[in-house]
């Protein structure tokens, strides 16, 4: 450990010295969309003679420092016309570029070669970027474009099954993904139990998914980072776009507040499937809605401010006896400031929360729970030279947890008011990350994040005999709640438990030749929050619990190794990666743990461990009428909770067992065929190993009912999952110069009607009295139709 430190210290201290400042000048600026003035993320600026270049950051800013001279440079971005110019570098200068959208994307992509070369050289691996245009072309369930559904088509990404919330990355759990919307943490990414994600595709500009080699800028979750940026809104002219579908509709308006200076964006979505309920004689509703807003203002060359917000809710209502409401809220203020043409900064002040409410009129009480967080982030990006960049910053989070409040709703209610103990925590981090091109063959990035977590005082905290919140009953061979020997009371300013973790990050890239490279990475990460979920997939009701006296933070070590190659002038590319992950302190639940309204959750959980390893292959065709990819993942994801002493059995007898999201084989084939200006076709094919599950290995009778007796955890699997989806986009008037542009989207989900089991349940048939296994297939063949428009 100490040696590792010395190595880092050496890198940080020694390397920048080699950079001299003489006869060097900086070119910097912003790159935007000509039409909307929207800043563009990830645009390549390349100097082919120098074999160097840079890309725009999340706010469209770039900076590069070069020796004095005259050079050719190229600016290229997928879907936009490239710029190729000559420039004389003899002073520091600011150059802003506006790119025009390429109208005929077929023949337009000219300079992709250099883009890929650059990517081959960058040390960052295990990252997938998807442009919103790519996502919008994929067929999805019910004809709705969906970000989370789309990323599950990438290698290493899956979800627990149809109708399940969230997504799993490289054998990690759903709660181990850091999901950021305009830098703000989103706690629940799903609407309607995973049928939709909470992100309105019209409001999204760009997204990046980090599966490994995660930069030091990010922390707090151990599995992945999904970094999503919303559009700023068109600051040139007013536009609207929207879509009308069979399940939901959306509308988005954007326009200037001050021309070319300030813009607004306001988008909304709602599903209206509940309108059909009365046909079924059910007095029930189930729908969602969400709103995205953003205000952007460019104060001057060096200062930009943004105010953005998100509000989403799901509502279930059953004949007035039951109403369930839940969702995320985000409010976010950001200030971009340029200290110099080499030093970019962003300050974010963020509030985000997740709310869950239940009104149970038939038993006369209300239930509320949730998590709130206040977040301050200050991130700086320092473009020291063309081959050395430094990112550093701080991140401070104040969290409050409301595990549940029960309020009687009537005078006659037999329920007493009850508040579960609220919990508070403070999470802080500082980081520094360097990206260093050592020579034309070798690039390295290395960083260090120091994170701390303080669990603050709460009104009551149980003390247990022998400090054991869970005790093992040796005689009966079962885990039981620990014996409470006292209750401590704390002030909010007290620190009950405190953790400090050093998280080194390292990534290396070695260019073998112009078209291929190898990369390697290591990252350690810590996670202080845990989503309490005892089911095979999280539910909206699940609450987040902070680490503390009895729950330890999760610690991850991940190594990944990759080989990257492009063929035929980057028409094709292949990425092969392997990874190994090891997670300490993954929480696990004792048999029959009751998590709902549990005020002493530590009494039903144990700290175990988890591991995952696998091989990912991504083959892409980037150009031509037919584009798409084949993604295949071979992996294993397991967890284990051994007894703390030799006498204890542990969970599942202390043996490793498959996590519910272990998918041995996972294949997706995504393709898009652009027939002509009118028609565009796309398809997905998915083939996956069945989800691990637990089947009975016997039955018995107790108190007049049949009880299934189960085998060890997750030792069987549901049947293999596979499915084909097709969709067609029809543009009636592609050459139309009118403002109004419309597009029809026809889709078929599950074309050949595969009955994929989303669960297999075991039950006693009420009529015959004998046991049976029943398969639930959620989606049959689902045709869909929607109309999208913009003006």
């Amino acid at each position, binding site marked *: 450990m100490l040696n590792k430190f010395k190595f880092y210290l050496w890198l940080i201290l020694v390397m920048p010295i080699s950079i001299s400042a003489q006869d060097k000048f900086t070119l910097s600026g912003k790159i935007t969309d000509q039409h909307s003035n929207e800043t563009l993320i990830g645009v390549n600026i390349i100097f082919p003679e120098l074999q160097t270049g840079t890309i725009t950051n999340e706010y469209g800013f770039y900076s590069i420092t070069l020796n004095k001279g005259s050079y050719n440079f190229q600016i290229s971005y997928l879907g936009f016309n490239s710029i190729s110019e000559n420039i004389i570098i003899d002073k520091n200068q600011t150059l802003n570029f506006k790119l025009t959208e390429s109208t005929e994307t077929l023949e337009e992509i000219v300079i992709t070669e250099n883009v890929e070369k650059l990517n081959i050289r960058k040390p960052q691996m295990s990252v997938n970027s998807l442009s919103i245009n790519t996502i919008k072309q994929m067929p999805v369930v019910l004809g709705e474009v969906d970000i989370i559904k789309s990323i599950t088509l990438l290698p290493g990404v899956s979800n627990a099954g149809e109708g399940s919330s969230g997504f799993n990355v490289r054998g990690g759990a759903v709660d181990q993904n850091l999901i950021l919307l305009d830098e703000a943490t989103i706690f629940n990414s799903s609407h309607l139990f995973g049928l939709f994600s909470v992100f309105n595709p019209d409001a999204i500009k760009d997204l990046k998914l980090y599966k490994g080699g995660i930069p030091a800028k990010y922390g707090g979750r151990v599995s992945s980072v999904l970094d999503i940026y919303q559009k700023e809104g068109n600051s040139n002219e007013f536009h609207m776009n929207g879509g009308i579908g069979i399940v939901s509709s959306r509308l988005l308006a954007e326009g200037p507040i001050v021309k070319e200076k300030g813009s607004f964006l306001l988008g909304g979505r709602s599903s209206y499937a509940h309108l059909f309920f009365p046909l079924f004689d059910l007095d*029930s509703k189930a729908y969602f809605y969400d709103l995205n807003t953003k205000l952007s203002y460019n104060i001057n060359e060096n200062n930009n401010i943004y105010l953005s917000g998100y509000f989403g809710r799901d509502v279930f209502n059953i004949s007035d006896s039951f109403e369930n409401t839940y969702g995320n809220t985000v409010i976010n203020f950001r200030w971009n400031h340029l200290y110099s043409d080499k030093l970019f900064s962003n300050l974010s002040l963020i509030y985000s929360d997740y709310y869950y409410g239940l009104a149970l009129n038939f038993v006369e009480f209300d239930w509320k729970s949730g998590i709130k967080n206040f977040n301050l982030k200050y991130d700086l990006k320092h473009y020291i030279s063309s081959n050395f960049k430094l990112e550093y910053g701080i991140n401070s989070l104040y969290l409050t947890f409301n595990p549940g409040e029960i309020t009687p709703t009537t005078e006659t209610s037999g329920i007493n008011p009850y508040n579960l103990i609220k919990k508070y925590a403070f999470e802080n981090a500082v980081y520094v990350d360097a990206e260093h091109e050592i020579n034309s063959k070798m690039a390295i990035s290395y960083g260090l994040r120091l994170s701390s977590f303080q669990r603050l005082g709460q009104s009551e905290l149980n003390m247990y005999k022998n400090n054991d919140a869970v005790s093992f009953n040796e005689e009966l061979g079962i885990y039981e709640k620990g014996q409470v020997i006292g209750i401590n009371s704390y002030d909010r300013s007290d620190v009950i438990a405190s953790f400090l973790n050093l998280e080194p990050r390292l990534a290396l890239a070695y260019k073998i030749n112009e078209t291929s490279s190898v990369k390697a990475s290591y990252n350690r990460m810590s996670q202080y929050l845990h989503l309490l979920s005892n089911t095979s997939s999280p539910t909206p009701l699940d609450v987040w619990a902070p680490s503390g006296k009895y729950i330890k933070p999760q610690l991850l070590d991940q190594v990944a190794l990759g080989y990257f190659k492009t063929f035929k002038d980057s028409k094709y590319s292949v990425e092969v990666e392997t990874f190994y992950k090891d997670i300490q302190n993954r929480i696990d639940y004792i048999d029959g743990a009751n998590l709902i309204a549990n005020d002493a959750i530590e009494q039903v959980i144990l700290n175990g461990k988890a591991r995952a390893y696998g091989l990912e292959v991504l083959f892409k065709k980037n150009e031509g009428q037919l584009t798409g990819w084949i993604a295949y993942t071979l992996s294993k994801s397991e967890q284990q909770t051994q007894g703390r002493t030799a006498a204890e059995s542990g969970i599942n007898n202390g043996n490793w067992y498959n996590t519910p999201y272990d998918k041995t084989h996972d294949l997706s084939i995504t393709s898009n065929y652009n027939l002509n200006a009118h028609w565009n076709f796309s398809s997905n094919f998915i083939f996956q190993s069945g989800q691990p599950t637990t089947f009975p290995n016997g039955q018995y009778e107790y108190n007049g009912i049949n009880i299934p007796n189960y085998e060890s955890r997750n030792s069987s699997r549901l049947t293999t999952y596979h499915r084909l989806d097709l969709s067609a986009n029809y543009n009636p008037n592609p050459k139309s110069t009118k403002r109004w542009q419309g597009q029809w989207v026809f889709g078929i989900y599950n074309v050949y009607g595969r009955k994929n089991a989303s669960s297999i349940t075991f039950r006693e048939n009420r009529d015959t009295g004998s046991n049976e296994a029943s398969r639930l297939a959620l989606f049959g063949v689902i045709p869909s139709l929607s109309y999208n428009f913009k003006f």
Partner: protein
Amino acid sequence: MSVLLLQTSCEDVIELNLNTAEPKLVIEASINWLKENCGSEQIIKLSLSAPYFDNQVPPANGAIVTITDQNDKTYNFMEDGVTGFYKNINFNPVINHIYNLQIIYNGEIYVGSETFKSVVSIDYIEQNNNAGFTGKDIEIKAYYTDPADENNFYFFEFDSNTPIPASLSIYEDKYTNGNQIFGYYSDEDLNVGDKIKIRNYGISERFYNYLFILLQQNNDGSGGPFETQPASVRGNCVNQTNPENFPLGYFRLSEVAELIYTIQ
């Protein structure tokens, strides 16, 4: 949304090959003392676990079954033929006394220990005909008054004289301590004139925890995305001779409040 699910989702019974574990002894030692009864006649049921799709489970015959009270008095339970039902007619129930169960079966000794728990009476019944998610079910609330000065656990059984299976539910007084509260029952197939046997058993916290897990296993939705991890549930009896071959079931002693209600 759900309307689409109703249209496209499909549930069907499938053939499935399951693993089969070795049979285990299942102990249903439920000592019930109905209020205003002497409680001297008691039956213990012993059976074996069976492959999941078998139509019945076999009885466990030829066991030696005894219960010893805390005054060292032993009650012998004799098997009624080869039914797996073991009977004693001189049992002496005492609230809050500890009882020990011993079973010798197939040369292995199984033991368990539990306290006799009391229960309050059922105060009255309330019936509502517009209940449930559809507003068409008949619901019954059996009210009782929880004693405020202790932690109580309840096991409710609603058993109708129709083919509808008995409904079992458990309650603790964490959120209802000292209140008049109810055991809840509703079923879409209930009709006017049906007779319901309502029983409220006084139980220990350990039995509450046991049944909490057991009822989850039996739940129709088990294995679904919103259900807890299924498991083999251990009760309060152990196999002293061969601990690996642990028994299933439970040894429980309860006072019982019973009421027969006719649906109006």
